[in-house]
C-alpha cells in the first residue's frame, strides 16, 4: 500500500508552515499513531500532547483537515488515502507545533464556585437514578476543549474576556442541577460567565467526542435559569430574601 501523506503544522508563535511527511499505513491506524511514527522516524522534535490514546483523557485535540477532533479517535482510513492535514487548535495561543497554551481554561475553572452541599447534610446521600442521571452526561466531559475551539464567541470574536465557553457551561450545569448543591451561579453566568453571548449555533455539540448535548441540555436550561432569576420580577424579589437556589424542573 502507498504511504499515507500527512501535512503537519510545524512552528511556534512567531510563525510556521505545514510540513509533509510520508507514513506507512497500518490497518486501523489513527492520526495519533501517524504522529508517533513521525516523531520516532522523521523528527523527534514534533511537539504534541497525548496521554491515553484511548479517547479518555482529551489531550490530543487538533484540527484534522480543518475539523476539530481527537487524534486518537480519528481513523486514517476515513480519508481514503487523501492527504491529511493536522494543525493545532486555533482558539488558544500556540506554544509549538500541535501544542497550544490551554491554561486559560484552568484559570476559568478556578473562578467557578465549587459544589456546595448543605452543611448539615453530610454524604452518603440518598439520590435516585432519576435525580442524577441527566448529570452523568455533563460529567462525561474529558476536557479536550474542542468545544472551546469551535465556539464563535471564543474563536471568531476572541471573546475569552467575556465568555467562559461551552466547556464551563457544562461544568456549571453539572453543579447547578446537582440535587445536593445549594449555590446559585446565575449571577456569575450573567456577568463574567457571559452566557448571553452564546447564540446557540450548536457547533460545540457537533465536535464533542463524548456526544454531550452541550447546547440543548446545558446552555439552554442555564439561560432559562438566568432569565428566571434576573428578569422575572417575582423571583427577583424572592431572591432578595433567599439567595439560595430554588428547586426547578429544568
Amino acid at each position: 500500500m502507498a504511504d499515507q501523506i500527512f501535512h503537519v503544522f510545524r512552528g511556534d508563535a512567531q510563525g510556521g508552515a505545514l510540513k509533509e511527511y510520508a507514513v506507512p499505513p497500518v490497518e486501523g491506524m489513527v492520526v495519533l499513531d501517524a504522529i508517533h511514527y513521525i516523531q520516532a522516524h522523521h523528527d523527534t522534535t514534533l511537539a504534541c500532547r497525548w496521554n491515553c490514546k484511548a479517547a479518555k483523557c482529551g489531550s490530543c485535540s487538533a484540527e484534522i483537515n480543518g475539523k476539530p477532533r481527537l487524534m486518537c479517535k480519528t481513523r486514517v482510513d476515513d480519508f481514503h488515502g487523501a492527504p491529511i492535514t493536522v494543525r493545532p487548535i486555533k482558539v488558544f495561543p500556540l506554544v509549538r507545533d500541535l501544542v497550544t497554551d490551554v491554561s486559560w481554561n484552568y484559570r476559568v475553572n478556578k473562578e467557578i464556585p465549587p459544589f456546595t452541599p448543605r452543611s448539615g447534610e453530610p454524604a452518603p446521600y440518598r439520590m435516585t437514578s432519576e435525580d442524577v442521571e441527566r448529570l452523568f452526561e455533563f460529567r462525561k466531559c474529558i476536557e479536550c476543549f474542542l468545544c472551546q475551539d469551535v465556539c464563535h464567541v471564543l474563536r471568531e470574536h476572541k471573546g475569552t474576556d467575556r465568555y467562559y465557553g461551552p466547556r464551563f457551561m457544562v461544568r456549571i450545569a453539572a453543579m447547578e442541577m446537582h440535587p445536593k448543591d445549594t449555590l446559585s451561579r446565575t449571577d456569575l453566568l450573567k456577568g463574567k460567565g457571559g452566557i448571553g453571548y452564546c447564540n446557540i449555533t450548536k457547533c460545540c455539540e457537533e465536535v464533542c467526542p463524548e456526544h454531550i448535548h452541550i447546547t440543548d441540555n446545558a446552555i439552554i436550561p442555564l439561560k432559562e435559569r438566568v432569565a428566571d432569576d434576573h428578569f422575572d420580577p417575582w423571583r427577583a424579589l424572592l431572591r432578595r430574601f433567599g439567595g439560595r437556589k430554588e428547586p426547578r424542573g429544568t
Partner: protein
Amino acid sequence: MADWYEERQYDVVIVGAGGAGLRAAIAAAEGGVSVGLVSKCLLGKAHTVMAEGGIAAALGNVDPQDNWEVHFADTMRGGQMINDYRMVEIFAREAPARVYELEGWGGLFDRTPDGRILQRPFGAHTYRRLCHVGDRTGLELIRTLQEKAIHCGIDVHMEVTLTRLLKDGDRIAGAFGYRKETGRFVVFRAKAIVLATGGWGKLYKVTSNSWDCTGDGCAMAYEAGAELMDMEMVQFHPTGMVWPPGVRGILVTEAVRGEGGILRNAEGERFMQRYDPKKMDLSSRDVVARSIYKEVQAGRGTPHGGAWLDITHLGAENIKKKLPSMYDQFLKLADIDITKSPMEVAPTIHYVMGGVRVEPGTGVTTVPGLFAAGEVEAGLHGANRLGGNSLSDLIVFGKRAGEHAAQYAKGVAETPRVDDSQAEEERRLLRRPFESDGTENPYGIHEDLQAIMAEHAGIARTGDGLRQGLEKVLTLRERAKGMHATGSMLFNPGWHECRDVLFMLTLAEAIFRAAIEREESRGSHWRLDFPDQNPEWGRKNVVVARENGGMAVRTRPVPQMPPELARLVQGETVVKSVR
C-alpha cells in the same frame, strides 16, 4: 541559588496529579502547610482517568453481608499472601469513608433503586463491591478530586517534569526538573515530598497504560536511596484489545465480565471452566490472563492470538448504558459493534504491584522526608491486585501520605538546604543528548527495551530467559548513553524521551533482578521452571536498593498477621499450582 533555574519553595511538594497526588494535596493543604502540586501533564489527564470498572469499597449497599473483613480477606488472597497485611487492614477499613467523601465533594455514582451508591461484581471480590459510574469511574474520581483540590489553596504546576530528588545529607531537600513549555529548569525546595507518580507500564509495548507511565517517581526514589519492593510483580490484565494493531493493549474493562461477559476460546468453549470452575470468568486477573495465554499456546486462540469476550446477551440498550465507552471504543477503533458480536481480547500490561517500600499507613519511605502513595507504593496488592482496589488505594493512601507529609513538614524547622551541585549534575545529564555526539534515537532505545521486556519478562518466565533479559537491558543501557536529541528545549518530546528511557531502564533492571530472585510462581509472577508456589517464598518479599553504585537484591520477611486477622483469610484454598 543559581540564576540558571527557577526556584519555588513549599512545605510539601506532591509529585504527580492523578488520584493519589490530588488526594494527598488536599490532605496536606488541610494539614495547614503550603503545598505545590507538580504534574508532568495537564491537570485531570493523568492515568487515573483511564480507570473504568470502579472503586472497591465494602459499603454493603447491594450485598449487606459485605464488610471490611471480607474485603481484607479477598485482597490478601488476591495478593497471594505476600501483601503487607497492615496496609490491607487500613485499606479495607477506610475505603468506604473515602468513597462517601467523594460523594460529598460532588462525585456521582450509579445508584441503587433506593438511591444509594450502586456496586457491581468484579474478579475475586466475594460480594458486589465496586462503586462505579458506567465505565468511566476513573474520570469521575479524578474530576471530583481536581475540583476539590484547586479550591484548597494549593499551587498547581502543570507540565513540569521532575527528574531528580535533591537531598540535604540523608533527608529530602527538594526536586529538580524542567518546564516542558519553555525548557526552563526548576528547583522545588521542600521539607517533604510525596511521590504519587504511578506505574511503569510503558516498559512494555502491549499495555493499557498512558504514555506518562514511565516510572519516573519510582526510579528517582531508587536513585535517592529508597528501597523498592515486589518489583517482579507486574500485572497482566486479561482483556486488552488485540486488533487492529494500532489499538493493541487498550483496556477492555473487567466490568464487561462484571456485567456478565463470557470468555470463550476459538472453539466456542468456556475455557475458564478448566482453570477456575468456581469463579469462572470473574477469577482473579493473574489466573484469567494465564488461562487465555494457555489457550492460545494450545492452539485454541482467536485469529489474532486471544480469546472471545461476549456480552451480546446483555442487550444493546443495557450495554450502551453500562458500558458506553467500551461500545464507542470498539465501534470507532475496531469497527466492531459489541452489542452484536464478541470482542477479541488478550492480556495486556496493566499495573505494577511493586514499587517504593513504605511504612504502612503513613507512606514513609526509607528516605527521610520522602513519602509515596498510589501505584508507585508497594505492599498493598502483594503478588496480584484485584480490580477496583487501585482506585480505593489512591484515595486511602493518598490522604494518609498527604497528612503525614504535612505533619512531618511541620516538625522540620527550616527548609533543608539545596546543594547546587546535585542540580548541576542533573542538568548535565539532561543536556547530554544535545551535547554528546551519539546517534541513538531515544524512541529506538525505548522500542528495543519493550521488545526485551516482551520476550523475557512477559506472562511466562524462566530463569534463563530472565538472565538473558537482564544482560540485554544492561547492554541497552550502555547504548542509551549515546542518545541524541535535536532542536531546542521548548516542548521537545524527543528530548523528554531521553530521560524517560533512563528511568525505564533502571526499573527494567529491578524487574529482572527481582524476578530472577523469586524462584517460585505466585500471582502475576509465573516461572515455568518453578511452576509451584513455595511456602518459603510466601514468607518473603524481594527488595532492591542501590548499594555502592549497583543494584543489590535482598529479601524481607512478610509481616505475619495476628490470629484474629489470619482467621479471616482461612477457609479458602489459595491456588496452589499454576501448571
